[in-house]
């Protein structure tokens, strides 16, 4: 019983927080969860590839190419941010600050890497993630 409640809470509003409107699987919460799910999956996959999936060297090469300072530690930090951010978006824990950091990361990716590649097939994807994460970070109270 308690176990099921924990997972329902995780799905709808994050760990350890009570929602003022009561219900768990209400349509607004499910809708917001689905919106969070898209960037959550993307950041979890990309973060895990950077940390454990053999994309670390590729990320360092990218950072060296676009002159990101301290490329080696920066690649670890970005991988960790994407993993933590993906988990935050999935669970609702620390969702606002991590979504804001992910939005900043996407802004840097657009400005330093994607702009010369154009919008189509270039920075459209990062822009989508930036706007979703920014929207989640600055959403009004009561939407969780």
């Amino acid at each position: 019983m308690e176990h099921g409640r924990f997972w329902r809470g995780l799905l709808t509003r994050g760990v350890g927080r009570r929602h003022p409107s009561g219900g768990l699987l209400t349509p607004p919460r499910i809708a917001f969860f689905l919106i969070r799910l898209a960037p959550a999956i993307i950041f979890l996959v990309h973060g895990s590839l950077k940390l454990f999936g053999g994309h670390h060297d590729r990320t360092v090469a990218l950072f060296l190419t676009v002159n990101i300072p301290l490329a080696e530690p920066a690649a670890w930090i970005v991988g960790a941010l994407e993993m933590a951010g993906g988990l935050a978006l999935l669970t609702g824990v620390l969702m606002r600050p991590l979504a804001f950091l992910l939005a900043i990361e996407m802004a840097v990716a657009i400005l330093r890497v994607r702009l010369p590649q154009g919008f189509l097939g270039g920075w459209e994807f990062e822009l989508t993630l930036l706007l979703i994460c920014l929207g989640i970070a600055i959403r009004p109270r009561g939407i969780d």
Partner: protein
Amino acid sequence: MVKLLLAVLALAVLAVAASAADVTEVPSGVSTEAVKAFKRGLEFHAAKQWPQAIKEYERAVALGGRFPEAFNNLAYCLRKTGQIEKAIELYKVALQLRPTFAQAHDYLARAYLAKGDRAAALREYEIVRRLDRKLAHCLRTAIDRNDPDYNDMPWNTGGSGAVSSPAA
């Protein structure tokens, strides 16, 4: 219901991770005409007929827009005809379009070496080392020998069959 959703989510993450690991280098949004010109350029390129190859690659660049392979190969041919500065600029364009383009980094390092800038060549080597170890090995030998042309067409000489060829 919740368990089912989480199971689907886990499967989705695994599937996306598996597909993301299989990265291809096919340019998107490049016109058919540009690809045809590029392939004609490749034939001249393999035959080391640089002026003809340059002409075809320039056509591919003009028609193709964001076509990193065409910029890369055009720069290579320009380097072979002694136009080092112009080649470096074009390698940089190729790398703006695809920053993890190992071969463009390799060729840029060789262009820096031809220019006499060994430090810049080593910086590029550090990037190639992280992208393609076999290519990096060839490049390191070229830098150590101070010979930018050493094994710089490994895909065409049989020197190292595992090294990737210019994309077609």
